[in-house]
């Protein structure tokens, strides 16, 4: 399907440029922190950026309303994929979260994020009252619960947490009464306490206790946080320079080019680098969030908001995690961390935002 020229002019090229700049900064530091490892990670990341960009452009060609109308099928498909992953997928790094398509490996749990954005847009599009009713809240929770439970079972705590961000975002938008907030917080606490004692694996518990007392587990996740914090702190104002980070410390981070890429930036590019990346992110998020004013309908607002919140949430959790203010939950830094699935999903999420924005004039 061709995009007509009018639509083409409406594409948010600034947003696209911001995304690409972030991605290239990512490649730069992926190279710096992994050039001595076999596998040429920076080249692979470049390839993934290409693939993701293509996916983003493809997303732009179809009116988002069409995606929303298909969201039910997507939901079914991703549920099947998640179940299949649980059953068949190879064990990678202890979690059954990967499914292999020949050369490419994809995490269905990442795809599920996009699907949830569309499903919620559809659920809430017709909901026009100022506040959520109990019935509506429970319905939405039930819909979200199936993929969420499948993801928790993998177990992929990081992705499950970002899921909560999408759900929470949709609820905030739909309007929560004070009573509802109290009930949800209480339910969350009950679930949390129950989950802590029943569902959480030891390593996950450790990550939370580590946050409270990093020295208690210096060789495990606490060790990662301590080393990450030392690396960031030692970067100072201007950093130690490209490839010159004392990686002797960072080498203990098994995920220094994935989850901990931001501590590499903090060390090698110092506060200047941190400031630059955060400022770019601020611009990016502002542009995404404030696009809600350009949406032509309710579904569009929900898409823009949940997609933006998804990126914002992962960004915040990641930069707080590497400096020791959040538990280490395995959430990547969108656009900068190494990893194809994460990159693809972030690009597609932005593609949805741009899609809504460029079709702001109803061409009925």
């Amino acid at each position, binding site marked *: 399907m061709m995009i007509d020229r009018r639509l083409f002019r409406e594409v948010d090229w600034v947003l696209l440029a911001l995304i690409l700049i972030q991605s290239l900064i990512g490649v730069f530091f992926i190279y710096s922190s992994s050039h001595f490892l076999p596998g040429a990670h920076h080249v692979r990341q470049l390839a993934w950026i290409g693939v993701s960009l293509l996916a983003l452009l493809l997303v732009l060609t179809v009116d988002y309303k069409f995606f929303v109308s298909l969201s039910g099928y997507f939901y079914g498909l991703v549920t099947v994929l998640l179940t299949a992953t649980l059953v068949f997928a190879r064990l990678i790094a202890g979690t059954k979260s990967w499914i292999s398509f020949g050369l490419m490996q994809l995490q269905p749990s990442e795809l599920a994020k996009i699907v949830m954005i569309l499903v919620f847009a559809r659920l809430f599009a017709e909901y026009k009252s100022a506040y959520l009713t109990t019935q509506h809240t429970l319905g939405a929770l039930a819909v979200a619960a199936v993929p969420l439970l499948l993801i928790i079972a993998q177990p992929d705590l990081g992705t499950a947490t970002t899921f909560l961000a999408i759900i929470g975002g949709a609820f905030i938008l739909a309007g929560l009464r004070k009573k509802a907030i109290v009930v949800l917080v209480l339910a969350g606490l009950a679930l949390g306490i129950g989950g802590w004692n029943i569902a959480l694996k030891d390593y996950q518990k450790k990550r939370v206790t580590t946050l409270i007392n990093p020295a208690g587990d210096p060789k495990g996740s606490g060790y990662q946080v301590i080393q990450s914090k030392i690396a960031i702190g030692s970067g100072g104002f201007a950093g130690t320079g490209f490839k010159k980070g004392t990686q002797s410390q960072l080498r203990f981070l098994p995920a220094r080019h994935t989850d901990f890429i931001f501590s590499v930036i903090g060390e090698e590019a110092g506060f200047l680098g941190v400031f630059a990346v955060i400022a770019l992110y601020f611009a990016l998020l502002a542009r995404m969030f404030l696009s*809600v004013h350009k949406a032509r*309908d309710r579904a569009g607002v929900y898409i823009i908001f949940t997609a933006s919140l998804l990126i914002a949430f992962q960004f915040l959790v990641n930069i707080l995690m590497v400096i020791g203010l959040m538990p280490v939950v395995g959430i990547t830094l969108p656009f900068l961390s190494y990893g194809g699935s994460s990159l693809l999903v972030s690009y597609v999420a932005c593609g949805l935002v741009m899609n809504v924005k460029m079709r702001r004039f109803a061409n009925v």
Partner: protein
Amino acid sequence: MPGERIYEDLSLVRRRASAAFWAVAALIFLALAYYWKVQILDHKKYEDLAAANRTRMRVLAAPRGLIRDRHGLILADNRASFKVSLIRENVKDVAASFAAISRLLGIDEPTLRSRVDLHKDLPQFEPIVVADGLGPNDVAPIESRRLEFPELVVEAEPQRFYPGGTLGAHVLGYLQEPTPEEIKARPDRKTRAGEMVGKTGAEHTFDDPLRGEDGTVYEVVDSLGRVQSEQARVFPVQGKDVVLTIDRGLQAEAERSLEGREGVVVALDARTGGVLALASFPTYDPNRFITRFTPDEWRQLINDPLSPLENRSIRGLYAPGSIFKLVMGVGGFGFGYVTEGTTVYCSGATRIYGSIRHCWFVPGHGAMNLENAIKNSCNIYFYTLGRRMGIDLIALAATRLGLGRKTGIDLIGEKDGLVPSSEWKKQALKAPWYPGETISVAIGQGQLQVTPMQIAAMTAMIAGRGRTVHPRLMEGDGAATADEDGPPAAAEPPLFKASTYEAVIAGMWRSVNDGGTGKGARVADFDVCGKTGSTQTMSRENAERLARAGREIKTHSWFTGFAPRNDPRIVVTVLVEFGGGGGATAAPVAGRLFELFKQELDGR
């Protein structure tokens, strides 16, 4: 705005979205402020932590599991030793540092340099081992000069030690450092640089269970590499012990009897295929390979024309000679070409396909049935039988008895050997099979090539009256295969009835106990059954090797047999290269092993 009417009122959700964004923005600002605190305000603190107090992760090498014989006696042990590693990151001036280290450790600079170059792809912080196998006295002077050498780390490591020296060298194998390519090729296996892995033998086959789980210690070190404190320690877990089927006593006897010769002794448990003894001579002391620095000795061993590293029991290819008459006997009987009563008259020579063929016994054996033909190893009988059977049935019988294919023993590098057939010749040599060649094959010459292990497995199969036996170094659950194309996957249906083997076994018994060629292997009250062989030719590679070594060419001497005749317990196969007649040289060696085994059985 015109057209506003067709849009629904979204102001409420838009307001909420904007509010949420500003909340996110506030959080981003707070995060930035915290980064400011850590990176600017507390910079000094973290810089000190980073520069002055650096945490180093050191691997505590796990001791390998012990290798024991079937009675629990230790064949491979560990002992304490020290190694010295170089951390390139801490080297300030390469030339000066190398010169000083070379003086300190007594290694010449080129060796040191090539050592470091070998691992140049590793990250700068990764320690490269530059000296190992050191005792406490060797490391004392290094430790006392820690301050001058921040780039050196001295670590204790358990070192493999083979208490028996050369004992069981070819069974146990040896350890070597993996090459950088080998490390990169197996990312799944957590091999670290400087680790020693099994290269051959049981050390290779059972490498996974033998290697333990390395421990780690996180140490805080200062800028000079001095350890300030220890943060956490995960103790290494020693690898699992591996119990082999080897019997240390038999193994020692097998090696003693080969001392000063070249050849192979294999003893199998006739019931299970468990290898009781495996000696291959010449041999080597695996303790010498344990150190990472034996380039000269190593090269010498590889280039030695007598190749002591080669496990001849599975890699040596020999003509089976008269041993092959067992295959002929089983095949001839099984396919119905002869019965117990069928006789062939041996006058010492006969004319077959237009040429005169001689028996080794010039006066002639007279009328021979199968049993006597085996006992006396009569050539004329088997020439005749061979001509009747034809090459392809001979080849079928030989293949079903395990020749021409790997036995599947759990050792790496086993060779297939060769059983010629008309099909094989057409494919390999693009030539038709000549009947005259069948006659050579019938007495175990021609293109036939077997390994001593195949002969041992074949003998075990005869002893078991046709039951297939796969030689094994380890029995039970932990059993592994060294090669992917191990033993034939599915059990083949037996080609011959159990009774087929009795006539041949009777001949083997008489060969040893009734004045036949194998009488040197006789043991009172043990009913040894056996067959001797002397081969006149050798494979081309053997001949070349021989020529390089400048040796005169004598016949190889074979013996293979089992005991007791009923309910066989042990199979012994002996090959002495250039040993002369099989009856004179090989049979007595086997006899001593049978004797020793019988004593063990009686003593139990």
